[in-house]
């Protein structure tokens, strides 16, 4: 971990979201995998926001190449998540922070998507080839609210890949 190099810190709300994140990381090219750091699980959605404010935003202020992804359950209240994002994340950092998550929670999402396997495998399926083409699973009602955030995150990662190729 180098504080002056690109890093994508991922904060999963709980163990189930962490399983999704591990699968997502495993499915990425090595260039991206090596930049992703999975942070300790705060244990709840409110705790994620608290950790973001107290632990992560100050670090993003300090290290301009660090980025943050929060993976939280939306608990069927997508507008509230958006409201938190708008209110809590300073304008200057909004381009380096993303919020993703299931509309309900990972276990219900898995069952509604018809994927009985481990959440890790669902995470891999969702993010496999996401740099070129999003899985159709993202169109499902459980996940389709993430598309704008995903597109923005994809552009940032694509820039990283392009920079690495050029260096």
């Amino acid at each position, binding site marked *: *971990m180098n504080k002056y190099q690109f890093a994508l810190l991922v904060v999963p709300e*709980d163990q189930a979201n962490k*399983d999704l994140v591990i699968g997502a990381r495993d499915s990425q090219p090595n260039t991206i*995998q*090596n930049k992703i750091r999975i942070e*300790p*699980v705060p244990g*709840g959605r409110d705790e994620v926001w608290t950790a973001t404010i107290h632990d992560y935003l100050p670090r993003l202020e300090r290290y301009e190449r660090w980025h943050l992804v929060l993976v939280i359950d939306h608990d069927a209240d997508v507008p509230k998540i958006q409201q938190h994002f708008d209110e809590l994340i300073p304008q200057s950092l909004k381009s380096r922070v993303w919020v993703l998550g299931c509309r309900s929670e990972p276990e219900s999402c898995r069952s509604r998507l018809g994927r009985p396997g*481990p959440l*890790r495998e669902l995470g891999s399926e969702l993010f496999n080839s996401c740099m070129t083409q999003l899985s159709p699973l993202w169109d499902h009602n459980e996940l389709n609210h993430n598309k704008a955030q995903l597109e923005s995150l994809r552009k940032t990662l694509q820039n990283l890949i392009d920079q690495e190729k050029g260096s």
Partner: protein
Amino acid sequence: MLRELGLIRYRCFERFALEVPESRNTLIIGKNGSGKSTLAQGLNLLSLAAREPQTATHLANSLVTPIDPNGTIFMVGADLGGQRVDYFLSLQPSSAAGRLEILFEQLFVDSLEFFHRAGREITYWKPGVGWNNIASAEVPVLALAPDSPEIEVFNQLRSWLKRVIVISPAPQQIGEFAEDGVQSLGVHGEHLASFYQSLIATKPRAYEIFINKLRAFIPGVVETDSVSFPGGRKLVRVIFGRDQKLTIPLKELSDGEKMYFLAATLIAAQDVDGPFTIFWDEPDHYLSLDAIQTFIQALRQTKGQFIATSHNAETINAFATDEILVLQRENYLSEPTMKRVSELDYGRDLVQALRLGEVYE
């Protein structure tokens, strides 16, 4: 891929089977003394048996605890070429002092027996012919009598077991000289220099993968070289700095740097010569806290199978719950049991539950 590892009457295990999850990556956690390292010893013994012909007595020298007077059984189950292969080896003390003998060996393919040895009586299934019997004098473990035809599945099992690398590194035992003809790593990494040198000599493409990984692990590394000495020995060195060069023999690297060298070598081996099954007892040992996640992820990325044991929160965080097994043992008189983390009630944060001792019964 390793699917099952069994131990009967060895150290804390009276009758135990580790069932490995479907994932390529597995983490085994458990309190001190729960038997994690003992599992590594059992797997290492079977891998040693496949590497070169060994008698039961020679083989048991790799163990830290004597074989049980009533016989110890080592078992391994693997998916090989779409078949499930199970192998059992039972060793017991011989009437001759200080010696061991094979009590029995058995080999099953998809639950059907293919090979059986009881003492000196060997019975094996020959396709198109039927059962054959041989009475033989002392025959090495994992081998038919020398004058008998080979069984293909036997070769497959041996070939796979040779590719099982059990490592419980002791950095102080990692030397700087590579010796000709030594190809195994050694359970403590004592032959790392030889293993590395043999890899890049036989598979030159491995060097680029190795050095890129080592540079990523240790900033400032430029390249490695080796200097020939009489007797075929080679001194392996790591070179730092481009303008002002600093050359350090492998032996003089820090403990953590030796782990990076080891991991870079194994990752290169997986890439050009794999797949291997790597069982690494506490891979996070000797590493700084900020480095562990990247290190573990690098090992997860390889195309082979990676099994680790650990107590470290950073390592535990790098595995999904379906990949984590918990060894439980109430006390030193009870036998360990194994559970998948996904079967346990650990709340919303596994690491916190482990720290508070909630995961263990």
